């Protein structure tokens, strides 16, 4: 039975590529208002899981519920509509568009996105543009990129691109943000700020986060609970301390055979 407060629930999810099961009978829950961490060795299927949740891949079998609604198999733009946004492990910025444009693209249902609206309802487009612009500026300030707003996104450093990815997700008032390694390549000072920002977003605005991260320090500081995946399955879940003490997790990382299932 669904536990109260589960925003995202993944049940028996399977994804196989040419017989190889990247995600194997994975079942997990992300509770509302939490910063849930997702860790696991390389090839555990973490990014594949993200791709399945956001609709970039279609599951072979299994179910994904978001807010009690089934979302598996929806294309990316529809999962986005439901309130799920993601970042990419390797930042995929829109290279020859400015930082500001990268953000202003995001809000959905912009009046000006219908080709005839700029002609018929110019004032509405105009007003909305102003709102989006203000919001983009706010968010740029939030992630400390406001001085770069008119630069092409391709000229950013890799850490700044990571922040841009985060900023992009904030443009649309999401319910759930999936972050794929937000910390990689971000320098320590920025990182500290990033952690503060994420906590602020989570606690003040009630946005739920689901974070893949390799940096255990960051996970410890940021996330609770932490879910551990290995070979496409969830093998443990708990607070960072519990995870660190969990024999199975260490086994998964260091090798040796963990106990499969149940």
């Amino acid at each position, binding site marked *: 039975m669904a536990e109260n407060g589960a925003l995202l629930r993944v049940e028996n999810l399977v994804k196989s590529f*040419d*017989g*190889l099961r*990247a995600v194997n009978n994975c079942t997990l829950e992300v509770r509302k208002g939490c910063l849930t961490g997702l860790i696991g*060795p*390389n*090839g555990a299927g973490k990014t594949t899981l993200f791709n399945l949740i956001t609709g970039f891949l279609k599951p072979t079998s299994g179910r994904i519920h978001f807010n009690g609604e089934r979302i598996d198999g929806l294309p990316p733009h529809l999962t986005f509509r439901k309130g799920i946004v993601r970042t990419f492990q390797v930042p995929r910025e829109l290279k020859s568009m400015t930082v500001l444009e990268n953000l202003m693209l995001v809000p959905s249902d912009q009046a000006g996105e219908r080709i005839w609206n700029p002609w018929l309802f110019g004032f509405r487009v105009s007003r909305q543009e102003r709102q989006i612009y203000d919001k983009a500026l706010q968010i740029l300030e939030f992630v400390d990129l406001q001085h770069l707003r008119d630069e092409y996104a391709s000229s950013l*450093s*890799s850490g700044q691109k990571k922040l841009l990815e985060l900023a992009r997700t904030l443009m649309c008032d999401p319910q759930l943000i999936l972050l794929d*390694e937000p910390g*990689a*390549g971000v320098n320590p000072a920025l990182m500290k700020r990033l952690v503060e920002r994420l906590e602020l977003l989570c606690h003040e605005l009630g946005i739920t986060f689901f974070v893949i991260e*390799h*940096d*255990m*320090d960051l*996970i*410890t500081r940021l996330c609770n609970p932490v879910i551990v995946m290995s*070979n496409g399955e969830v093998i443990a879940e708990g607070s960072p301390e519990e*995870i*660190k003490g969990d024999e199975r*997790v*260490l086994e998964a*990382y*260091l*090798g*040796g*055979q963990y106990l499969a299932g149940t």
Partner: protein
Amino acid sequence: MGVSILPVLEVKDVVAGYGEVEILHGVSIKVDEGEVVTIIGPNGAGKSTLMKAVFGLIPVKKGRITFKGRDVTGSPPEKMVRFGLSYVPQSENAFATLSIQENLEMGGFIRRDGLSERLNWAYELFPDIASRRHERAGRLSGGQRQMLALARALMLDPQVLLLDEPSASLSPKMVEAIFERVAQINRSGVAILMVEQNARHALQFSRRGYVLAMGVNRLEGAADELLESAEVGKLYLGAEP
């Protein structure tokens, strides 16, 4: 194994990465003749990047790589193979549209003679792929594909074999089989430098090990010492230093 004065492969203070992103911030590793060395470390430590940098697949920005005392820094992979190194990438390590036999022939591409003997040798070492030699490699199971990748890399009779996570996404049984095969290859005199996720398992087959984290050396030592060390677990799960 006798202790040689010069290591076969030595990596000194190598700095490398993809494009502007630097992942290795000065890593040093050495491999003596005939030994198995395992590199372990948490995700994102730069283990695979190190392999690629050594093999010339990504540019080395700083540092030196020497093979038998000869500077091979920045040589392209097709040259590395001629020096006597061989490399098994982590994924996509077989030509899926080629037959198994053709895969092995490609492994021996620069060989001038003795190809058929070497082929027979490979099939003897890996009997499970021998029976399917005219099938496309894309049809093999994960474990068999890994065997094929090993066999392909051995076709040139290399002195040093670089293995990038040979046990990745294999069943426990298969992992066992792969490691046994690796040990067997080593007994035939090939030095092995291996990156592994499966740290404990790999260290059991190794003489020495290195632990990388965040693109720098963190620990090194004899394999059994590392196996016992509590430090290693902490590096993975990030207890406060």
